[in-house]
Structures are given as structure tokens and as C-alpha cells.
């Protein structure tokens, strides 16, 4: 009996012991029990009060409980030794799209067949537009859309901002004319409700026309549609006020959520944020605000320093973008020089903040869709180097932002009772070598992951099979893309000829734009493909100078971006490294060349080229065996004619010309080939047929001239 009881007790004890060990104590539960922190011995910068050289800040229950030189850490606080650290109010990003849903791939993108209702070229690009239910207005003109209804709690972008020391932000949907109502959120929380500090904050207006093919389709229509809706909102308000006072005898006014959402703008109860960067955009925004007596805030404000008189007079604050413009184009000898206006603009941008401060215009900093969040503080430092006082810069990242956005009583400075958002650094935050050591949001520490490089594009790399509809013809081409950070290179092959892409870009949300020469119906044209990549599909429209617009859809082979990094040069480099021309910075690897780089060095044009001549819509294949020695070209050409000798030369840089006399249909015909060779040995990974170089140009004879293009395949080693 006793043994059994003992056994039972033992088993029960074991059971409890095991379960006790097994019961998960989540991180949240554990830290839920710690809600008091104290950072001691730190340099504290409250922003709205004098700096405290050495002091303590205590946060409890998500709020700042105490700040001062003589504050003692409470017994139940988790103490962080702040020696050598500086505590600032959590930084604020005054205008973002954080937490907004990513664009979803359009269902009709894959088919892209004409006649299938709204064509894919229109459906795909507008996938980011948030639609409100039962609206009388089309998407993009729905002011009732609210950011708070669609916030997603975590994303790479939110992580990147937190790592840059940003603890809260204003967020609004990505696009539209009436973009929607923004929300001020803390960048931490398990549910959207936990993140929201205040909503709605403001109605955002952008001045980009809808791309749906319906009104308004131009900047002209954007202004008129905004104006008409604001007039209608005024009438809506008047009619409802009248009706409320005495409904008897009056037909009830319509219920319209879109107009109802505009009423707070007219009554100045809600501010409107207007996106404007150039001087004329800002003036137009101010004119519109004046016309309807709106409480306006300018977002972007790159040239706001040119309009300070009016901004100050109308008491308009600016959410100044820190995404300063920089040159992104490579140095190419044949390119046009950049306009003076563009050069000036890039140099003036960092000076804007200092000028606004000098003119007593209120402003706060926003990240302005920058891809590398380190530029947030980095460019604030540049603004300081260009005339902005340090304390003004700090205010622009903290209390000014809070006050402009209506949360100045809740956060933005280190004052007792405010929300405990803190950014802690080693070193002055506006020093280039400062490091962010801790970030607190809502009184809780945030895990700082190592700075992730911002989303590097949609992963456009790969080999795509693209179907293009142009001038009621269907053609298929292969599009090979290689993405290296911001840069996109590649080439096309197939029914539109083989050629290198002239310029290409792929944005972080999947926007794609490629300009490439094509050969269509015997003529060379320049085509621009613009559209979207979503997963392994792409679709969009094609515009060709001189032809009517077309559409394209494509799928990526192999179901994923190729992993080969272009900078690790392929091994199959047949020729020795040429010397780099002066002034041309070499690409990352010395053995890979970029477009339009060094002149063809010895033997680079050599090899076997498969070319095709476009004659009357037909592609006539031929094989060219080239041998280059210095500037001389020799070799053989073989095609729908007997092999014939060729002789010619490299004329300059990458241009060549050679002649050959061939026998066509019993007649001797002199052919003159003139063209350009593009070497981009870093294009495609070596597997199957790696394309190693491309040539294109024209063949002239007494019978006329036609285009030709060719590729040189090299076996991979």
C-alpha cells in the first residue's frame, strides 16, 4: 500500500515536474512580466528640454515614468547601463507606405489575350490600388479608403526602418489620386490595433492620373476631378446639414461615403497631405488648397525652399523627403550630357532643410521611398553639413513630425507621461560613426536585426519566354535578364531579333521597364516594355516608336531567379583582359565587361557567330566565322549561299564593318556589313548555351539594306 502510494506520488511529482518543464514560457509572456526599464548613466536628449549629461530614464507600462539627472532606477526595473550611450526620443518617419499590402499579381496577367474584358496592361499596374466597398467612385478616387483597415503588422520594410532607429511612422496607401486616409503607427505590435497611435491623421492626395483608361487619364483631369469632388462634398455637407435641421418636406440627400470622407477636409477638421516636389507642383497644390480653404501639408518638398514665402504665409508644413536624388546612370561616352537643371537639383536637394529652417517653415523628415534606410540618418547628416542646425535636424526627426501629424502630445520627445519610444545610440545620432544600440517601442525593446539591404528588386533575373502582341501579330521572344542590385541588364532573342537591352530597371514593388532595339517587319525600332513582375510572371505594355502600342506577357523558365552573381565572372573568358579605357570605372570583376565599355581588343570579335538577316519578314540564317587580328577582320560567311570570304576592320570602339561578295541566285552580290558588337560576358550563367556576345547592324547591297543580328555562343568551361 505505501509503496503504491509512494509510486503514485512519485509519478505525479514526475508528471508535474515534466509538465512544468514542458510548459512553454513564450518570449512574450516572459517579457510581459517585465514592463519597467531604466537606462542609467546615459546622456539624455529630451529634445523639448535641456540635455541631461548624465541621467536616468525610467519607462513603465509603455510610458515614460521618469527622466532626470537624479532619478533612481526602481527596484523592479530591468536596468540597462547607459554609460557611453545617448538616449533620444524614438525617430519618426513622417510619410511612408509601411504595412501597406504588397501588390498582388493580377489574375489576367497570365493570359493577356485581347478581348478578355479589361486588358491585362491596365489590370496589372493598378493592383496596388486599395478598393473601398460600395463606392460611388472608381478606385484611386476613393477618399474613404483608410490605411488602418489594411495594415500588415510585419514586413522587411518595417524591420529595415526599425534598424535605422525609426520607432513610428505615418503610413498611407501606395497610390491613387485620393490616396486614402493615413494612420500614425508604432512600428511594433502583434496586431494592427496595437500599432495604431492615431487614425485617421490626414487625407493624402497624389497628382498621378489613373492608368485604367478611364477619366481622369491626364494631369489635366486629375485637377478637375479633385475640384469637382470637393465642390460636390461642399454641397453634400450643406444638404445634410439642412436635412438634419429639419427633414420634413425635403427629399433625403444621398448617402455617399466618398463625399462624406471629404467633408472633414472642407471643415478643416482634417488636414490634407499633398504630394509635390517641384516648384510648380508645390504652387499648384497651394493654389488648390487656397481655392477650398484646406489645411494642407506638402509631402516631398524637394523644391519647397523656392516657395518659402508662400508656405510661411499660409502656415503650411513640409514633410521633407530625405531621399535625395543621385545619379544612377553609368558613364557612357556617347550619352548626352545631363541637363544643367538636373545637375543643380541634385546639389541643391540637401540644402532644402537648412533653407526651410532659415525661413521659419515647419518641416519634418520622411524617408521618401528610399531603398537603403541607412540614408535616413545619413542624409539628415548631409542636410546638417549643408546648413541645417543639428538641433533642428533632430527636431525634424522627432517632435516636429509628431506635432505636424497631431500626436505631439503623445510622443516625439522624452517627457514624463509620453509614449515610451526611445532610440539609443553610442555616439551622437548625427555623427556618421554612431551606432544604434537599442530601440524601444511602446516601452518594449525591439530586436535589432543586422541591417538588411532593402528589397533589391523583384528578382527579375532569369530567362523569360515572352509573348508580345504588336500590330495584331503575335511574336515570341526570349528575354534574358540579370539583376545586380539596382541594375538590370540583359538581351532579347527570337522573333524580334537579337539585341542588347539599352536600359532597364526593376523597382522594389515589381515595376519593370526595359528599352531595347527590336527588329520588326524588317525595320529596327526601339521598343519600351513597361509593366510588372509578380513571381514568375510578367506582363505589361509595349510602346514602339512609330507603331501602335502592344502588350506582352511572360513567364520565367526554371521557376526562379538565377543565383549566379554577375560580378563573379564566368570562367569561359577566351581572351586576355583588355586594358580599361581612361575614365571608365571597371566593373566589379576585372574580367567582366559592361555594355559599351572598352574597345574591342585583340581577337575579341573572333569566333563563330550565328546571325540572321531580316529580309521581307523572313529571317535568313547565316553563320559567320570571324577572325580578328588587331583592327583587321577576316573570315568566312556561309548561309543561303556558298561560303564566301570576308574582309574588313574594327572601325572604332565596338563598331565593325566588313564586306563580302556572295553568289545569290547566280549573281555576284557585294554585301557590306556594318554593326556593333556588345560583349557582356556576365549575362547568363553558364549552362546549356551561354550567350557570350551579341552583334547587330545593317547589311547593305545594291539591292538595298536589311538589318541583321547575331550571337556568339561559347561553350562553358
Amino acid at each position, binding site marked *: 500500500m505505501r509503496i503504491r502510494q509512494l509510486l503514485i506520488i512519485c509519478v505525479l511529482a514526475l508528471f508535474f515536474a515534466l509538465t512544468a518543464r514542458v510548459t512553454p514560457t513564450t518570449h512574450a509572456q516572459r517579457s510581459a512580466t517585465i514592463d519597467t526599464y531604466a537606462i542609467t548613466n546615459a546622456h539624455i536628449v529630451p529634445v523639448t528640454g535641456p540635455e541631461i549629461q548624465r541621467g536616468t530614464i525610467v519607462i513603465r507600462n509603455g510610458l515614460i515614468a521618469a527622466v532626470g539627472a537624479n532619478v533612481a532606477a526602481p527596484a523592479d526595473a530591468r536596468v540597462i547601463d547607459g554609460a557611453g550611450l545617448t538616449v533620444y526620443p524614438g525617430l519618426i518617419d513622417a510619410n511612408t507606405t509601411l504595412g501597406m499590402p504588397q501588390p498582388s499579381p493580377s489574375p489576367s496577367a497570365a493570359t493577356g489575350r*485581347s*478581348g*478578355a474584358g479589361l*486588358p491585362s496592361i491596365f489590370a496589372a499596374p493598378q493592383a496596388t490600388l486599395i478598393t473601398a466597398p460600395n463606392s460611388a467612385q472608381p478606385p484611386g478616387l476613393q477618399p474613404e479608403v483608410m490605411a488602418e483597415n489594411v495594415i500588415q503588422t510585419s514586413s522587411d520594410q518595417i524591420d529595415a526602418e526599425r534598424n535605422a532607429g525609426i520607432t513610428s511612422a505615418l503610413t498611407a496607401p501606395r497610390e491613387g489620386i485620393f490616396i486614402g486616409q493615413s494612420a500614425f503607427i508604432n512600428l511594433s505590435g502583434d496586431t494592427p490595433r496595437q500599432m495604431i497611435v492615431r487614425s485617421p491623421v490626414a487625407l493624402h492626395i497624389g497628382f498621378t492620373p489613373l492608368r485604367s*483608361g478611364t*477619366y481622369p*487619364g*491626364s*494631369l*489635366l*483631369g486629375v*485637377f*478637375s476631378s479633385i*475640384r*469637382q469632388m470637393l*465642390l460636390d462634398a461642399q*454641397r453634400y455637407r450643406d*444638404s445634410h446639414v439642412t436635412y438634419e435641421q429639419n427633414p420634413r418636406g425635403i427629399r433625403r440627400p444621398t448617402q455617399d461615403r466618398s463625399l462624406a470622407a471629404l467633408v472633414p477636409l472642407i471643415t478643416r477638421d482634417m488636414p490634407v497631405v499633398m504630394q509635390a516636389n517641384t*516648384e*510648380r507642383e508645390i*504652387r*499648384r497644390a497651394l493654389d488648390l488648397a487656397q481655392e477650398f480653404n484646406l489645411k494642407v501639408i506638402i509631402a516631398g518638398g524637394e523644391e519647397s525652399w523656392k516657395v518659402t514665402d508662400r508656405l510661411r504665409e499660409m502656415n503650411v508644413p513640409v514633410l521633407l523627403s530625405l531621399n535625395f*536624388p*543621385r*545619379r*544612377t*546612370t*553609368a558613364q*557612357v561616352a*556617347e*550619352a*548626352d*550630357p545631363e*541637363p*544643367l*537643371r538636373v*545637375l543643380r537639383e*541634385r*546639389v541643391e*536637394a540637401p540644402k532644402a532643410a537648412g533653407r526651410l529652417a532659415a525661413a521659419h517653415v515647419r518641416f519634418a523628415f520622411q524617408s521618401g521611398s528610399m531603398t537603403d534606410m541607412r540614408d535616413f540618418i545619413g542624409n539628415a547628416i548631409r542636410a546638417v553639413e549643408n546648413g541645417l542646425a543639428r538641433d533642428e535636424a533632430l527636431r525634424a526627426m522627432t517632435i516636429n513630425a509628431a506635432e505636424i501629424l497631431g500626436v505631439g502630445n503623445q510622443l516625439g520627445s522624452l517627457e514624463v507621461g509620453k509614449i515610451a519610444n526611445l532610440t539609443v545610440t553610442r555616439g551622437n545620432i548625427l555623427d556618421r560613426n554612431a551606432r544604434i544600440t537599442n530601440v524601444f517601442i511602446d516601452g518594449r525593446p525591439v530586436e535589432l536585426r543586422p541591417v538588411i539591404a532593402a528589397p533589391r528588386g523583384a528578382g527579375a533575373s532569369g530567362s523569360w519566354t515572352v509573348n508580345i*502582341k504588336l500590330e495584331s501579330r503575335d511574336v515570341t521572344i526570349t528575354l534574358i535578364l540579370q539583376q*545586380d*542590385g539596382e*541594375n*538590370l*541588364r540583359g538581351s532579347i532573342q527570337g522573333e524580334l531579333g537579337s539585341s542588347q*537591352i*539599352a*536600359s*532597364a530597371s526593376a523597382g522594389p514593388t515589381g515595376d519593370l521597364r526595359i*528599352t531595347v532595339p527590336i527588329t520588326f517587319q524588317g525595320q529596327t525600332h*526601339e521598343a*519600351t516594355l513597361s509593366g510588372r513582375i509578380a513571381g514568375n510572371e510578367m506582363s505589361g505594355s509595349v510602346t514602339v516608336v512609330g507603331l*501602335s502600342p*502592344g*502588350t506582352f506577357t511572360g513567364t520565367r523558365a526554371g521557376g526562379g531567379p538565377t543565383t549566379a552573381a554577375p560580378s563573379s565572372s564566368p570562367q569561359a573568358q577566351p581572351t586576355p583582359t583588355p586594358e580599361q579605357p581612361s575614365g571608365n*570605372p571597371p566593373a*566589379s570583376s576585372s574580367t567582366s565587361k*559592361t555594355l*559599351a565599355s572598352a574597345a574591342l581588343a585583340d581577337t575579341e570579335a573572333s569566333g563563330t557567330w550565328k546571325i540572321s538577316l531580316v529580309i521581307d519578314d523572313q529571317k535568313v540564317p547565316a553563320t559567320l566565322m570571324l577572325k580578328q587580328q588587331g583592327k583587321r577582320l577576316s573570315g568566312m560567311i556561309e548561309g543561303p549561299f556558298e561560303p564566301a570570304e570576308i574582309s574588313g576592320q574594327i572601325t572604332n570602339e565596338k563598331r565593325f564593318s566588313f564586306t563580302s561578295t556572295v553568289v545569290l541566285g547566280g549573281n555576284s552580290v557585294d554585301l557590306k556589313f556594318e554593326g556593333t558588337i556588345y560583349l557582356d560576358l556576365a549575362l547568363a550563367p553558364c549552362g546549356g548555351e551561354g550567350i557570350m556576345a551579341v552583334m547587330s547592324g545593317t547589311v547593305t547591297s545594291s539591292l538595298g539594306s536589311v538589318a541583321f543580328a547575331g550571337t556568339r555562343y561559347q561553350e562553358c568551361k
Partner: protein
Amino acid sequence: MRDKIKRLIVFTISLAMFSAINPVHGQTRTPDNQAEQRREAPTETLIRNATVLTISHGTLQNSDVLIRRGKIAAVGQNLKAGGGARVIDATGKYVMPGIIDCHSHTMIDAINEGTVSVSSMVNVKDVLNPTDIAIYRELAGGTTTANVLHGSANSIGGQTIVVKLKYGRPASEFIFPGALPGIKFALGENPKRSNFPPLPGLQRRYPATRMGVEETIRDAFTRAVDYKKDWDDYRAAQKRGDKSVLPPRRDLQLEPLVEVLEGKRYVHAHSYRADEILMLINVANEFGFKVRTFQHVLEGYKVAREIAEHGAGGSTFSDWWGYKIEAYDATPYNTAIMMRAGVVVSVNSDSNELARRLNIEAAKMMKYGDLTEEEALKLITLNPAIQLGIQDRVGTIDLGKDADVVIWNGHPLSVYSRPETTFIDGEIFFDRQQDIARRADMERERAQLEQAEPNRPPAQGGVPPTIPRRRPSHDTDDEWDGGIDQR
């Protein structure tokens, strides 16, 4: 009396001798130096010893033009200016009024709201771009005023305005004071989109025929008549003290059409074929408004009498022909034939590029129709001013008119001549010498800016720059100037 005048002359001459004479060149106005410009711009300018083409009262040899506070203060010989005046020696040069371009799409960020066929609610005033380099180039071609229009994609297009090309000023200062606003209509192939296949998947927009173009216009005006009545009724009720009536909904599409009906807004109608010209005259007569100008009007010669009877002006090309079916019956004698029938005719550019040499366009009419020099010059000065209702202020060199004048280095109707200095309201907005002198400064500035960190190409990678054929036309020299859509 004579004695008194003599004494006055002696007095002013001695005054002039003792006063400082300011240097010849005024600085060209650019956005970066405009603040300092306003401070130092003299209020008086004396252009001396030029051949003055007054347009209104013949050619004056060896004459002076005195400009004071933006107006033409005196025209004659041996004029004297006050101390502090800017004096320009124009010996061997010609002075004529600034050219007025009656059909321009310069300086707007959007040309067509092509999604709907009645877009009267949109206004080019909302999208003005005062930094368009084309403005400066037009000043260099002697053009000082432009009628900035919506495009021709719609039967009823957008609202239009007249501007003075004050390059360097904010957009609000461009607007021509007191000029009535306009609205653009378009007839024929462009609004019915015959040369543009519909985008894949979309239905062709209505109207697709000339019948439809007419119907769209009639329908819009019918609704405008109703709209006007609703508002007239409302205002009458207000006057009576009846508070129970809510105002009608303001409809921005119909309001400009009501203004047309009330004669407060000019109609500029892009048109080609004789039948559509007559159609619009009939519609206008029916609704009780006047077409102010027919634009392009290449078959105007066929119906010149009807156009003259209606009282419309014609603003046309010098010698464009055959670029679309409706332009097939065009003749360069169109201008002369319409003129002889009593139509006020101007020659326009419809192009940033052509707006730089409207003097040559006018000169061609001496060949095609034997116009005299004066008649030819009127085509680009007084006539467009009359068409735009601004002839009280510009279009000729007369006392009291705005000092919008241009100094040419030769007779403006010669292909060898070029403007040297362009004045608007007495201020210099283009000066050839100043432009040349600035080039060295700009090169230096460019060299310096290109060294700045944000302007250096990225060390690694870098997007290949757009190839020359596709660069935006507003920033470069050889433009590819729009398409058929605008003509």
C-alpha cells in the same frame, strides 16, 4: 509756344548729357537671378535709330521707341529719355511687335484629357510649366505671346488661356491680364480617333464619325442650356427670397459651355474640312454663340465667305499639306484667299519648333498669295491679337500699348534675320549677346557641378543611360516634335 518747346528741348538735351547712360545689355532673366533682376531693371528704355515696323501706321525710318514702366511711351525721331534709362543703339536694326502665336501647346505638363469626348472641365491653367525651355527658345525667335491650348483629342476639349512668355517667372505671372479665357473644340479625324487604333481590349470611344462629333457638341450644349436655366431659376428664387430651394449641383463640365453661350469664353475650333466648318457654324448659330477662331482650317478657302459672315477668324498653317486625309485639299494660298474674303487670318505654329520662326511662316505668304510686307507681318501680330481680343494691348507699336517688342538684326521677313532682344512689358526676357556671354559661365558651372558627389556616376554598375533617340524633348536641342495628334 515754339519758344517754350525749344527751351524744353534744350533743357532735356542738357539733362540727358549730364545723366549717366546705362550699359546696353540687360541681363537675361533666369530663375536663379530673378530677384536681383527685379531690383536693377530700369523703368525706362530707349531704343534708338531703328527701322520701326509699327504694323498699324506703316514703317518709320531712323526712329526711336521709348518704353516707360512697361508701356510704349513714345515713338518718333530723336526722342530723349530720362536719367537712368537703358539706351540701346539700334542703328541698322528693325523693331517690330512681339509675335503672337495663336495655337500653342508650349509650357503645359499635359496636352490632352483624351479619356472622355467632352472634357470642358479641365483647364490648361492647372498644368502650366513655366520652366519649359521651349519658352526661352520661342523668345529667341521673337514670340512674346501664346494662346496655350488643349489638344485635339476631343470634340470639346479643355479650357485655354493666353500667356505672355515671361520665362523665369512663376506661372501666375504669365497669364495675359484681361484676356478672355477660351475653350478648344476639335472636329474631324482627331476627335473621332481615326488614326489611332483603340488599345487592345477597349472599345473604340464614341464618337467614331463626324456625325458623332457633331452630336457630342450638340448634346453638350443642350445640357448646358438646361444647366443655365436651372441656375437662372435658382437665382431668381433667391431674389424672391425663397430659401427652400437648394442650389443646383455645380457641374464643372457645363459651366464653361454656359460661358460660351454668354459670350464670355472664346471658342477655338480645330477643323480641316469645309463640311465640318459649315457644320460648326450652323451649330453655333443655332445655339446663339460665335466661333471665335477656326484653327488649322485648311479648307477654309472653300468656305471663306461663310466664315467671314459668321465673324470667325482663321488661324492656319503656312504650307502644311497631306499629312492626313483631311489635309489633302490644303493649299498654301489658303491664307490669302481667306484674307481677301474678309476673314481675319493668322498663321500659327502648333509646335514648339515652328514657334521659333513664325516670321518665316508669315514671309511665305508673300509668295503664296502676293501679300504685302505689312499684310504678312499682320498675320503674326495684329491679326492674332484681334482674334484673341487683346489688340488694345499688343499687336502693334502704338502709344500706350504694352511694350512687347523685339529688336531684329534685319527685316523680320528675311530668312537671314534673327531677334537680338525681346522685350515683354518693357523688360528684357531674351538678349542674344547676354545669352552668348552666359555660355562660358554655364560651362564653368557645369564643370563644377559634374564634380559634385551626387552627380558622379555610380562607381559600380549603373543603369545604361537612355539612348539619344528617346531623351525627353524639352531638355534638348533637336526635338522630335509631337505627332499628328496635335495638328
